């Protein structure tokens, strides 16, 4: 009898314990449901479209912005293969980029690729493979609407283009008038008048150049610096710049030595690379005294073509060297020399080199000279 009582007591204890376990499980379940609801609320209220695919690449979670961009209804969308959602004319471009052509179940990794889903809607799409140590768990697709950015970008480009046009028009009038007077098209002028007008002409040319520099800067900031990239010999670009610079070299009686060797080809925007070399050469001339020396050499290693330009000029003060590539910065020693410059040349130069996946650097000592180097990757074609 006593044994029975003990057993029954034990059973009661087990029951209580079990109930406790159940209660805990229930709490945990509730917590899990709460967490899921929270996560869903967060996902639902993101501005970006989010789609979570299971390991068979069927839709597991999709939020309203994603539904809206893809123009689909929520009903019945869960469990549908992602490729099927993209079976629309306006989404063909996206489908092509993200779905494997041979196996429609496969999805490609892309990072912030841009697409337009209609005439005035632009989105950036990222797809990320989700996985743990053991297996692939599916994909996360993020759709970011960039319509507004595109619009602002276009407005800015238009503004800069129109502003440049408006600024150039009166400057053209000055240029044309002064040139025609100087050329004697409207009668003869005396030496003193001629001298003053020559200076006017040079000032005006400076202004025109400044506008070109500003246009380049605005391109840099839009990230649309490079336009036409082709495979070329960089020597050809250098030669063009050197030929065009004979006059400024003669004016300062500076000796330019160019050392070339046979080089592998590089993929560059020729015009922009020309601007880089021209900037570096013009700087070297500008900041080197009468009768000085400049040496340019081209070389390469396995990966890069290396350009080097060495001058015997005024150099860059030590304490200002770290700011030399900053927009509008000009070193104190050269502003005191009353040389003209916009402080945009090296900024532009550096950005062009970086856009080519290259590097630029320099060594300089005041009153001894400066050497600029840049390297750009060799074409793998």
């Amino acid at each position, binding site marked *: 009898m006593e044994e029975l009582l003990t057993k029954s007591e034990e059973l009661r204890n087990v029951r209580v314990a079990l109930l406790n376990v159940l209660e805990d499980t229930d709490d945990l379940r509730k917590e899990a449901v709460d967490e899921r609801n929270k996560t869903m609320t967060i996902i639902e209220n993101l501005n970006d479209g989010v789609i979570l695919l299971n390991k068979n690449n069927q839709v597991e979670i999709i939020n309203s912005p994603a539904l809206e961009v893809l123009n689909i209804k929520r009903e019945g969308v869960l469990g549908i293969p992602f490729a099927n959602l993209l079976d629309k004319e306006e989404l063909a471009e996206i489908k092509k980029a993200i779905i494997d052509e041979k196996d429609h179940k496969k999805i490609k990794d892309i990072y912030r690729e841009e697409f337009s889903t209609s005439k005035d809607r632009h989105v950036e799409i990222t797809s990320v493979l989700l996985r743990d140590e053991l297996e692939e768990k599916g994909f996360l697709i993020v759709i970011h609407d960039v319509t507004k950015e595109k619009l602002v970008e276009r407005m800015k480009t238009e503004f800069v*283009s129109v502003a*440049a*046009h408006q600024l*150039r*028009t009166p*400057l*053209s*009038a000055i*240029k*044309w*008038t002064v*040139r*025609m007077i100087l*050329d004697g*098209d*409207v009668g003869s002028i005396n030496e003193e008048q001629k001298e003053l007008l020559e200076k006017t002409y040079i000032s005006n040319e400076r202004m*025109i150049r400044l*506008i070109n520099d500003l*246009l380049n800067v605005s391109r840099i900031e839009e990230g649309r610096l490079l*336009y*036409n990239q082709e495979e070329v010999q960089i020597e050809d670009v250098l030669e063009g710049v050197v030929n065009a610079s004979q006059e400024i070299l003669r004016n300062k009686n500076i000796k330019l030595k160019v050392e070339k060797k046979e080089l592998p080809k590089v993929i560059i925007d020729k015009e922009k690379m020309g601007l880089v070399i021209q900037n570096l050469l013009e700087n070297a001339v500008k900041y080197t005294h009468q009768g000085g020396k400049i040496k340019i050499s081209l070389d390469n290693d396995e990966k890069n073509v290396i350009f080097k330009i060495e001058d015997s000029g005024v150099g860059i003060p030590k304490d200002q060297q770290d700011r030399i590539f900053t927009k509008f910065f000009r070193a104190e020693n050269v502003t005191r020399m009353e040389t003209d410059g916009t402080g945009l040349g090296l900024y532009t130069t550096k950005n062009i080199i970086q856009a080519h996946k290259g590097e630029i650097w320099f060594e300089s000592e005041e009153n001894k000279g400066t050497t600029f180097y840049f390297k750009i990757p060799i074409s793998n074609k």
Partner: protein
Amino acid sequence: MMKKILLIEDDKFLRELMVKKLLTMEYDVVSAVDGESGLSMIKESKPDVVLLDLILPGINGFEVLERAKQDPETADIPVIILSNLGQKEDIERGQELGAVDFMIKAHFTPQEVANKLKTILE
């Protein structure tokens, strides 16, 4: 025979300067101040070369160029764009539409424009 140049330019001062320069070079110069009149003058006066500005009141220079090239009567007349636009896109568009050259006004002197005319006419 004197070669005839049509200058389509809306800025009065620039137009006067260029006309003056071209007259000293002994060209026969006619000019228009907007797109519509420019286009009809291409058709009527059959110039040997057209100097065309792009930003014009009414129809712009690109449109003038496009229409002139579509018209078989005027398609062969060489057109030089002389404008202060000059972004790559503009230059490329001009070339696609059939312009023989694109000169940015602020980058060339009247003499250089005249030299260009001379090489095209030869």
